[in-house]
């Protein structure tokens, strides 16, 4: 005998697959999956058949052949005898570089513009509105080309820096040269360098850099511990000790010590002949792309930030004021924690948009993954399907990685309710 709480057992009938809510959803999902698989199976076998008929069986062997083309903006060593794979890798690093720089700049500019647009100052809020409307209503490609044109047309040529009564001069105590061929900035050099670690045979990672990162990480960790201690003191006594100088100290003092040990110094760009040598050369293509992508995306982020802050009702600020909380604390403990929850999901899609828009790099000759793998490599080898599939896979991987990181962050600031 069964207990009273057991549901009456019902014999399974085939019609239940469609009429019973317990099985109905599963039935339809299985049918959809089968249709989907059939369609793609047909598409792939058909394509493979057609390619085989043309004598172009899908193969990724071409990646190992010498690329035979030059890439001027690159983060790792590369020459035209290296393989297509290495060229693609150079391109990938360039994509990551401009996407990273762009996301950081766009966030900073976007948050500032978004907050300023809510300002009570009529002029400032109008100016910010004009900025937002100008950038988000014109295709980003135009902005990229315009930035490039401005850089090339309006800046002095390196030869203008020559001679005793030169037309142009270097900026920031003669350390930075801004020319129509790009910007030359000082490069960090280590006279007692610890050397490099090779990663596969793809590229080398500087041990100096690793050491710096480790020291920084430890510094931030200790600084965080000091903050936790301050929190505890505040909880116990009500008074928050002043710790900002200690917190900055534990980060910067060890870092400075390490830099001295490594013999850190700057290599300055110098004019030699008709061009600059030494220092780090930021090409116009990179700067134009970075600038245009950042400013364009910042316009969208500004709108998200504005919407996020507006979404937190005025009542919250009033309640906090009525309790005597000062505006800075209200912003930090009441408004921002709630606004972030509204801002982050659209922020994720802005980062993804920026990364994907960076594929327009080819317009100004910046060799990213699209320009290398899906541009020159594709042209030289005629492997459309393989290169496009690889390219899509790479963008997909980058995008998923960005989403994963941001979603993790989002889940930590999410509002707990019911």
């Amino acid at each position, binding site marked *: 005998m069964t207990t009273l709480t057991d549901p009456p057992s019902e014999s399974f009938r085939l019609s239940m697959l469609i009429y019973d809510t317990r099985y109905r959803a599963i039935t339809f999902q299985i049918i959809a999956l089968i249709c989907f698989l059939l369609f793609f199976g047909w598409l792939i076998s058909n394509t493979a058949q057609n390619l085989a008929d043309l004598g172009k069986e899908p193969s990724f062997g071409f990646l190992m052949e010498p690329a035979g083309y030059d890439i001027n903006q690159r983060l790792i060593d590369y020459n035209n005898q290296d393989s297509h794979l290495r060229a693609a890798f150079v391109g990938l690093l360039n994509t990551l570089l401009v996407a990273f720089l762009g996301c950081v700049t766009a966030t900073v500019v976007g948050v500032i513009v978004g907050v300023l647009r809510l300002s009570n100052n009529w002029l400032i809020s109008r100016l910010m509105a004009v900025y937002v409307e100008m950038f988000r209503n014109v295709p980003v490609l135009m902005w990229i080309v315009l930035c490039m044109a401005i850089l090339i047309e309006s800046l002095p040529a390196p030869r203008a820096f020559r001679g005793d009564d030169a037309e142009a001069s270097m900026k920031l105590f003669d350390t930075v040269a801004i020319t129509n061929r790009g910007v030359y900035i000082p490069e960090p050099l280590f006279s007692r360098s610890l050397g490099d670690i090779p990663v596969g045979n793809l590229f080398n990672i500087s041990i100096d850099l690793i050491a710096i990162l480790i020291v920084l990480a430890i510094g931030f960790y200790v600084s965080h511990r000091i903050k936790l201690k301050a929190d505890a003191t*505040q*909880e*116990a*006594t*009500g*008074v*928050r000790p002043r710790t900002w100088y200690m917190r900055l100290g534990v980060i910067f003092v060890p870092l400075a010590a390490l830099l001295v040990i490594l013999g850190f110094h700057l290599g300055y760009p110098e004019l030699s002949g008709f061009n600059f040598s030494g220092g780090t050369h930021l090409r116009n293509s990179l700067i134009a792309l970075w600038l245009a992508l950042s400013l364009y995306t910042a316009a969208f982020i500004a709108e998200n930030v504005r919407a996020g802050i507006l979404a937190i*009702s005025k*009542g*919250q600020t*009033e*309640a*906090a*004021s*009525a*309790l*005597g*909380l*000062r505006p800075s*604390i209200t912003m930090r*403990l*009441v408004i921002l*924690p*709630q606004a972030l*929850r509204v801002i982050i999901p659209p922020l994720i899609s802005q980062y993804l948009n920026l990364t994907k828009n960076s594929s327009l790099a080819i317009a100004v000759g910046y060799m990213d993954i699209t320009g290398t793998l899906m541009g020159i490599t594709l042209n030289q080898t005629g492997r459309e399907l393989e290169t496009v599939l690889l390219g899509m896979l790479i963008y997909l991987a980058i995008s998923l990685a960005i989403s994963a990181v941001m979603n993790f962050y989002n889940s930590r600031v999410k*509002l*707990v*309710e*019911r």
Partner: protein
Amino acid sequence: MSELAMDTPIDRSAMKVSDEVAIEIRNMNKWYGQFHVLRDINLTVNRGERIVIAGPSGSGKSTLIRCINRLEEHQAGQIIVDGTELTSDLKNIDKIRSEVGMCFQHFNLFPHLTILENCTLAPIWVRKVPRKEAEETAMHFLEKVKIPDQALKYPGQLSGGQQQRVAIARSLCMKPRIMLFDEPTSALDPEMIKEVLDTMIELAQEGMTMLCVTHEMGFARQVANRVIFMDQGQIVEQNEPEEFFNNPRSERTKLFLSQILGH
């Protein structure tokens, strides 16, 4: 309008009004742009007084009490709270805000913080009270408003009446000497109105100075020692509740009372 349950006998003798002045408003005027919201307001509130402010919608009741803790700025005249004049001086504003508590129509609890954290936020960051002490105070007041068992929940998990009681407890945690209420029950269902009014009555019996904008005339009769009637930005009439309800002097008051009491 709900009739207040009369089963709780109210001991009015405990509600003493002292001679000490808590709030003094002299010739206060306020404009929104061209619109003259408050005209020549003169009002003196002694410590321990329970004042109910009534009047038609748009008459400036909310604006008046929001001026008292500077959520709105007045443009002419003086407001003196506990001997401190409200000016644009931040120090004065901070001092007054920490002595004046306020409850809003829509509660305005912080949805991302637990009930307990809602109650301890201001004591910790404004009064610099150690967390443990702040939590003990918070629990004390949550017990007083009869919801200590909800302390670890979030505002979204509570009913409207419970939320308003938390809002009252949150204000009380700052140990204010004056409480302002802006229609604390008008967003609530009838059953919940009573629990909030009971809390307010208890507060009145302990001698809290209260200014309350409300349409609960039962509450006004039972608790208030003065009813103020406002219309078009002016104080038209003020009197003891019995006199106010039975012998209203101005025509506008009569009209308002006939509408709100449904005669």
